[in-house]
């Protein structure tokens, strides 16, 4: 704001006075609106006989949940139910992010392949799946595809270890055995050793310019140390393979149909966006960089690893995180098919049972807000660190 010149005294033409007046007015309007809404809500709640507050979180929920990662039964409280929903949301988000990243990178790289057919197929994939609403894709997998799957007795089996039927996907599960503790210690040791090795390699490279096969050594370490531990102290875990007993499968882990449909649809949908992000990131590295690397005598594989990928990651990572956030927010579409995530449990069932509309919605929203805001904060820090230092 420029300072006012002269002492004409007419406050109305003083830009600073006007800015102050405008801001005060804005705050007053917002505050008045807030107070008005608050007042209305108070009266409405009184007339409907709803007591506000979070006391209901202590009450017993009285209904079961089809999938829970933590111990939960019907007599547990709404507070516990919230944790169940939160865990389920996080489960589907994390699994979805992993699957979508793998699929998205493969398709994004295939989009730039010198092979015409592969290039066109990935383009078709991207254009098909990102233009269909995610909820429709979830419905398609849940109501159309999984309905065609037979019952437990005629399960589709893959290598006699994976079984798909209308109650879900049954996968073998590891069960810890005697050797588990030494095995985990060995894994931790291998990771620590790799990190120390990486530091040493970098220091030596900066000093002498000599390279070291770091990746290979780390992989060997990560396989050899735990392997050795397993050989000496016995197997760390054994697998329980699902078996048909009576009317259903026993043993192993079960992926319920809702989770399966949600996971497939969200990963397929988000992968299309991630693929585009990856493509544009790789294309953003100018061709001159490749040529420069070639003229320095770097091998193609090294050019890719040391020149192209580090520069394209700078472009890829910010939109990639926003895709991860989108996937997390889209996991709330679970409400459409009744997967017990936070929204369908809390903003759906709990709200209907208790009538505590404001509290349940506020809790649900604040969880997503916390996730989103903390990731954007991290992103800002990352962007500051990765910003091009121009000279």
């Amino acid at each position, binding site marked *: 704001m420029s300072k006012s010149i002269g002492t004409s005294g007419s406050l109305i033409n003083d830009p600073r006075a006007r800015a102050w007046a405008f801001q005060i007015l*804005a705050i007053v309007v917002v505050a008045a609106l807030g107070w008005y809404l608050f007042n209305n809500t108070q009266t*409405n709640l009184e007339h409907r006989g709803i007591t506000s507050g979070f006391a209901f979180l202590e009450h017993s929920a009285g209904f079961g949940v089809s999938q829970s990662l933590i111990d939960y039964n019907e007599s547990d409280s709404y507070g516990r139910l919230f944790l169940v929903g939160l865990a389920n949301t996080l489960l589907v988000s994390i699994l979805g992010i992993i699957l979508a990243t793998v699929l998205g990178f493969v398709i994004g790289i295939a989009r730039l392949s010198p092979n*015409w057919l592969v290039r066109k197929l990935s383009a078709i994939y991207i254009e098909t799946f990102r233009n269909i609403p995610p909820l429709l894709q979830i*419905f398609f997998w849940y109501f159309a595809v999984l309905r065609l799957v037979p019952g437990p007795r005629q399960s589709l089996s893959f290598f006699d270890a994976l079984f798909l039927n209308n109650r879900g996907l049954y996968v073998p599960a590891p069960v810890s055995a005697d050797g588990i503790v030494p095995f985990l210690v060995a894994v931790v040791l291998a990771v620590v050793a790799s990190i120390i090795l990486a530091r040493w390699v970098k220091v030596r490279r900066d000093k002498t310019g000599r390279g070291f096969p770091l990746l290979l050594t780390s992989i060997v370490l990560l396989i050899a140390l735990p392997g050795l531990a397993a050989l000496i102290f016995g197997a760390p875990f054994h697998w329980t393979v699902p078996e048909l007993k009576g009317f259903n499968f026993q043993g192993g882990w079960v992926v319920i149909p809702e989770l399966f449909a949600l996971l497939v649809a969200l990963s397929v949908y988000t992968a299309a966006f991630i693929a585009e992000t990856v493509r544009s990131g790789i294309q953003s590295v100018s061709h001159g960089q490749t040529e420069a690397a070639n003229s320095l005598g770097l091998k193609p594989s090294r050019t890719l690893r040391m020149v192209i990928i580090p520069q394209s990651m700078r472009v890829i990572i910010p939109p990639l995180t926003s895709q991860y956030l989108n996937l997390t927010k889209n996991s709330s579409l679970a409400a459409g098919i009744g997967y017990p995530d936070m*929204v369908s449990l809390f903003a759906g069932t709990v709200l209907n049972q208790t009538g505590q509309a404001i509290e349940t919605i506020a809790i649900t929203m604040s969880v997503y*807000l916390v996730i989103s805001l903390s990731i954007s904060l991290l992103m800002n820090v990352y962007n500051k660190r990765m910003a091009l230092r121009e000279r």
Partner: protein
Amino acid sequence: MSTHTFKPDLPPPNRSIGAWAWMRANLFSSVFNTLLTLLALYLVWLLVPPMIKWAFLDATFRGTERSDCTPGGACWVFIKMRFGQFMYGFYPPELRWRVDLTLLLAIVGTVPLFIKAMPRKAIYGIAFLIIYPVVAWVLLHGGVLGLDAVPTSRWGGLTLTLVIASVGIAGALPLGIFLALGRRSEMPAVRVLCVTFIEFWRGIPLITVLFMSSVMLPLFLPEGMSFDKLLRALIGVILFQSAYIAEVVRGGLQAIPKGQYEAASAMGLGYWRAMGLVILPQALKLVIPGIVNTFIALFKDTSLVIIIGLFDLLNSLHQATVDPVWLGMSTEGYVFGALIYWAFCFGMSQYSQRLERRLDTSHRS
């Protein structure tokens, strides 16, 4: 005197032209590439023939009943019989011409905006934006001018999807522009208010917004005042979408060189005139593709209103597939719905890409 004549050019070597050479270069350039090609061909062979067989060769197109359909193929009879419901929802069949007319007017009305040589485009555009919603409301809802009233609870199908999407964008655009200006304002209080608003809506999923608008909005209003379910959903959608529009517009505002702001001040223009006459026309032109992309996202997001029980296209499809008479037709239903959504979104994204190329006056160095 003998003149030198060039011999005609030799044709290029056989191995560098024609289909065979193209295939060598693009499909079989190396061992790895050949393997990839074979793998891709296998994938295509696995997917495409069964799909064509299901959708066309074994499919049933004629008939009026479920029993007319042959098992194994798609039963497009189902789509044919329910087509009216997918397009209009529960809108009374004898009044459907009003929906058609509304859509026709929208198309006829927007055509001049796409003609490059049209004079006074801005004035026409603003007039259209003011007059059309009134006409559309009168036609769709009726109740005046001797038209029978059709309550919004009977609207549905693709009509409702289009209504939510277009009202959503029309409401979110002005609000989003003001929010973007507020976020770039030099007044700290205004800036904080706008940033809080934008980050709040961008941080939560649309589903929670819809839940909020359907259960919390009635609590916020004075006693006895209640309004339509559709309107409540629309308010939620507009508030949600305006935050995204604001971020897109902010990108455009930031892309305008500082010299333009300074030049506008030097001309003696105040804040609103500088924005309205100098900055926004340039900034909005830059972000049209971004706005179209936001609109595509909004169009896909309209499918979420199923959660609060509105009968948009997806919900009409869903209801039709759980109808006992047509049980087991979900695949046909969802494939049909996917095609419609896809056609709209793909068309708009192609348009936005073309626009991006056309508007690219390359200020970039």
